[in-house]
Structure formats: C-alpha cells, structure tokens
C-alpha cells in the first residue's frame, strides 16, 4: 500500500508541458537549460518575497541568488510531493530568516540606534505607502512574514502554512495578531490614513 502511494507521488499528473513539474522532469532528465525557464518564471516573485520579508532592498539579490543556487543543486532530488512554488518559497523564507538572524546577531555588536525610528519617519513622511511599509517593518518576523505573504503576495493560508512549515491555525492567528499590531502602530495616524 505504502509502495503504491509512493509510486503515485513520484508520478504526479502533468497538466501541461510547460508547467513547473514538466520543466523539473526535463531538468532531472539532463536538460539543465530548462532551469533558466524556471528562473524566469519565479525570479520576480522570489525577489519580491525577500524584499517584503526584509522590508528593504538591501541584499535582496544576494539572497535570491542563494535561493536559486540551492534550488539548482537540489532540484534533482525534488520529490513532487508539493507544488514547486511551495518548495521554492520555503527555501526563500528560510534564507530570509537566516539573513535576519545573522543581521540580529550583528546588530548586537553595532552601536544603539534610536528606539522608535518608525514614528519619527511617520511624522516627517507624509507618503502613506511609506508609512504603512515602515509600520509593517516594525512587526516581528513571525507576524510580518505571514501578513506580507497573504496581503502582498496573495498566498492562501494553506500555502503560507506549507511555506513556513507550520499549522494553518497558526497562520490564521498570526495574521490576525499582525493586523491588530498594525492597527495599534497606525492608530496615531488614523485620520491621515482614513482608518
């Protein structure tokens, strides 16, 4: 029974020749040139997720490079158990987490900055997008990442749960908490933001 299940998993239904699975199949069969096609398809999304997760553009391309190098190396071991994008975004989020962890460790050794840069910038910057972006940036990683994946990338809760390797209820709860936190941050600017 297990064997049959495995067989079924290893031979997923190929919907069309140009979907991700067929490209990966070709790559596994030795046609490494199809990797550039996969790259074209998912490059922008990956870069955007990194940008949103980090809340700035610094190091986005470096992390994106690392993501695709990891994908290239391990693509031959892809088991077709989930969507390619789920696997790809999981790698992306993990790379972002690694980067943020290293950044946090580095920040311990850097001189202290002002406590509340967000509010200062809010007072000076009237651009609403910038205000909201800064507000999102102040959220903790575990709240910010599911929120941006949902509101900015349009992921479903299930996709977010798969990407972040957590329960769907956790995603639901974290997104709710992220929104509650954002409301509190943006409360002083309620009128300007027409909340």
């Amino acid at each position: 029974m297990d064997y049959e299940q495995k067989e079924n998993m290893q031979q997923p239904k190929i919907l069309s020749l140009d979907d991700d699975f067929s490209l990966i199949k070709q790559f596994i069969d030795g046609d490494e040139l199809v990797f550039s096609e996969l790259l074209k398809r998912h490059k922008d999304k990956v870069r955007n997720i990194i940008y949103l997760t980090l809340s700035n553009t610094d190091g986005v391309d470096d992390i994106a490079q690392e993501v695709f190098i990891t994908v290239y190396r391990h693509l031959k071991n892809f088991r077709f158990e989930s969507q390619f994008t789920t696997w790809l975004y999981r790698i992306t989020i993990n790379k972002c987490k690694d980067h943020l962890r290293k950044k946090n460790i580095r920040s311990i050794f850097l001189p202290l900055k002002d406590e509340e840069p967000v509010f200062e910038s809010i007072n000076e910057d009237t651009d609403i997008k910038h205000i909201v972006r800064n507000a999102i940036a102040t959220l903790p990683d575990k709240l910010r990442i599911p929120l941006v994946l949902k509101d900015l990338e349009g992921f479903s809760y299930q996709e977010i749960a798969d990407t972040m390797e957590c329960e769907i209820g956790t995603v639901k709860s974290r997104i709710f908490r992220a929104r509650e936190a954002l409301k509190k941050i943006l409360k002083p600017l309620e009128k300007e933001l027409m909340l």
Partner: protein
Amino acid sequence: MKKNKTDIELLSAYIDGELSPAEKKYIEDKIKSSLELQKELSDLKKLKELTSSSVDLIPESPFFETRLFANLNAKSQSKFNIKKWIPISSLTLVTLALMAVLKFNPNLLDNLIKEQQSNLVGFYKENLQPLLYAADLTNEDIFNFAVYQELPLDKTNNQILKLGYDPKGSEFFEIKKANQINDADNLKKFVTALNFDENEIKNIDSIIGSYSEQISALVLVNDKNAMAINPNIWNTRKLILADILAFAEKHASYDFNKMMPTQVMKLDDHSVAKWVNEAKAMKDNQYIFCTSDSIFKEDFVFDMTEYEKNLEEMTENLAELNEQKAVLREYHFKIDTNVSKQKKNLNWTKQFEVSVDSNLIKVSIQNFVVDIPEMDLPNFDSIAIVIHEATQNIQSVRPPSPPMTVGNNSYNYEYKTGPKKKTKTDINLDSLMNIKNMQNSKIRIEQKESEKKGSKENSIQFFYGDSLIIMQNQELKKEMDKLRKELQKFREDFQDPQQKNNDTIKKDSSSDVEIIEI
C-alpha cells in the same frame, strides 16, 4: 471580551476568504447583529487595502540571471575543490587511528624497530668468513699488521683496515684506501737486518703463521660488504709483535739490540707465553660490525672448528668468491646528512665516533661501549718507525755513494796533507744513521747509567722511551755538532801552514825591526 476577540479573529480570516462555510455563515450572522463587528470589519478591510497597496514591486535586476549562472559555475568548481580535501581528511583519519593504536600499544614502534634491527643484524651476520681466507693473507701481511697495524681488506682495490690509538688512548680503526703501497718484503728486510739463518727464518715464519688462525676469528667479512671486528684484535696485534720481537731478541740479540729501544729488551719467552695463553683464554664474543649503512656491536660466536669442517666446501667456493672479490668487497659507506641536522633532537647514546670521508671511514671506540680486554702488553706505538728505519738502513749499507751536499752550499773537501789525511770525506745522512746505529750499544750503556742515577730528565725520556725518534734527533744533533767542530778544526788545520809561515815571517821581521829599533 474573549468571545469578541475570537469573532474579530474570524473577521480577519473572513476578509481573507479563508473561513469554512459554517464559520462564514456564523460570522455573517454575527456581523448583521453587531455594529461593533461591522466597524471592525470595515477597519480590517481598509487596513488590508493599505497593506496590499503599500509595497511597490521591487525594480528589475537586469544582470540577475548572468550573475546567477556565473555563481553556479563557481560553486560547481568549489564543489570539485572539496574533493581535493578528501586525501587530507583521509590522511588525518589514518593519523588519528595510528595515534589511537599507539596510545593503547605504546611499544609497537619500539618493537617494530627492534625487529627490523634484529633482521638487519641477521642479514649482515650471514656467511661471515675469516678475512684470512677471503683476502688471502700471507705471513708478510700478518707481519705488516703486527708492525704497521694495517691489514689488507681488499688487495685489488687497495683497501686496508688500519688499527690505532687516538690521543685520548681510545682504540680506533679505519677502513681506507692505502695512501701508498707499503714497501714489499718488509718481513724479508726485517729478517735480513737481523741476519737470521734458514732455520730461524723457518721458525719466525711458523710463529707468524700460528697467529693466522687467531686473526681469522678476529676479522670476519662476508659478501654483503659487512665486516666484523673482534675488539681483541688490538691486543692480538701487540701479541704477535711481542712474539716476533721476543724471538728476534733471542736469536739475533746483537743486531736486535742495535735497532730496538731499551724497553723492548724486557721481552722474554716467559712473558710472551703468558700473554699468548691469556689471549687464548679470552673468549670475547662481542664483535663490532661495520657495514655499508651502519656500525653496531653485537654478540656473535664464530665457531672456528665448525668453520674448518666446512672449509673444503668453502675452498671450492673460494675460487668463485675470488672472482667476484673485486666487486664484493669494496667498502662503501652511505652518509646520512640528515643525522647531523637531527642531532640536537635525538637523544641517542654515543656508541661510536664515526668520521667518514670520501675514501676513509674512521671509527673511534668508546670504552664504555665495547670492552676491549685489557692485557699488560708493552706499548709499541712507534715500533713501526724504528723497524722501518732499521730495515731501511740495511739497504743503505752499500758501497760509498757519490758525494752529497750538506746544507745550501756544496762542500766537497779534498785534501791530501795533514794528520787526518783521508782522500775524500762524503757527508751522508744515511751513513750518519749507520754510525748512530753502530753506537747504539754505547748509548744504551749511557742510558742504563743515567737510569741508575735516576735523573728526572732521563726518566722522562724513558717514559717516552718508545719515541726513539726524539733520542735519535738528539743524537743526530750531537753528531752534527761534533762534525761541525771537526770541520772547523780541519779548516783551521788547513789554513794553519800558511798562517804559521806568515807568523814566522812576521816574527822575523818584527824581530828585525826590534833589532833595528834597538
């Protein structure tokens, strides 16, 4: 309040479209009946709009793909580089394994080295045979060995084994190319110098021959360039010489006394026989092995009786061996230059002091390493020079040689008048030596007298009695002084007649003058 919070959480999921139909129906019913929830829903929708529109897409990165493929190539190369580390890591593993083995069995290496050493020693011990047979030693060779301390190892390649004592008194041996071929027939010259008759010659031959077996067991060689020397060889050499000299003294005392220093006179049959027995009683089974790559001491029993049993077989092989002799027995020594560099780090016991040159190896023996049997034998350090001088003088007893020069100017005096009227006087150093030898007995008497007096100066001379050269030089000086005086006298005598004539004339004239003046 808690309930309200759960409803708001459901509202959040509701605007995301993530509620189940039942949840959706539940919350929609709630919203209809609650103004608070309606306001909350409105705020959440506005917030979602704000967040969704807050971020612009990140700008395009035009060289992203080019950079990525360049990175992929570099990474694949670095993947190969990792393979280069595999030998190093495996080497490290082996080292660790070796360290672990040595930790639990610390004597492993020592045992291995000892085993290898014993294998090597066994290899060099094989087929050792006496040099006497291998190198065809003659009585002449044995005589030269006794007198000049040189034993031919390989006549073809002119290699010799030289024994000696360094200034500290420690024994050493050298294996080297003979600087010059020794004058042949040294034994014959010795015998001639002592005026031996035929029987005496036979006797001395048999005496020397009798030691051949003893030497046989003392110097062993084999076809692996190995040579084993018994430390007793230094004593044996003295013994042979003592025996020869004792015989010479007994049978040609007059001629012998002329050439030998006084101290050798003490030799007599009794003491020699005692030494011979002493030497035979010594069963020293320790040999110094001198091989092409190592020098070591090792216990080894050479059974001469068994060897003689196999001699016939050996003799058959000897012909073959002799053919190969030139190739087989040329002693080469490898010099490990690293040893001197590592000297500081090595905690080694100094066993032998080895000096190696391109055609010489000198091995000084430390007394605490090899016990050389002590025998109360006379010191024959410079006997070789004495015997050589004496036998050479035999040759110089010839018809008068042509006039020789003395000093820078050539004086060839011929005079026919005067009291010492000899037609010709040749000043020949050899003849001076002869004169000295002829007067040896006189000198000995003088020495004996001075010995009785016990003057310090003379006692020192006797202490170094064996260094006869010093005495000879002193005597030579005396002779030269005498000769100079004689020459001076002769010159005076030669000039005398003229002076005498002049004197008489002067005297006469002066007397005349005196007379005139008077």
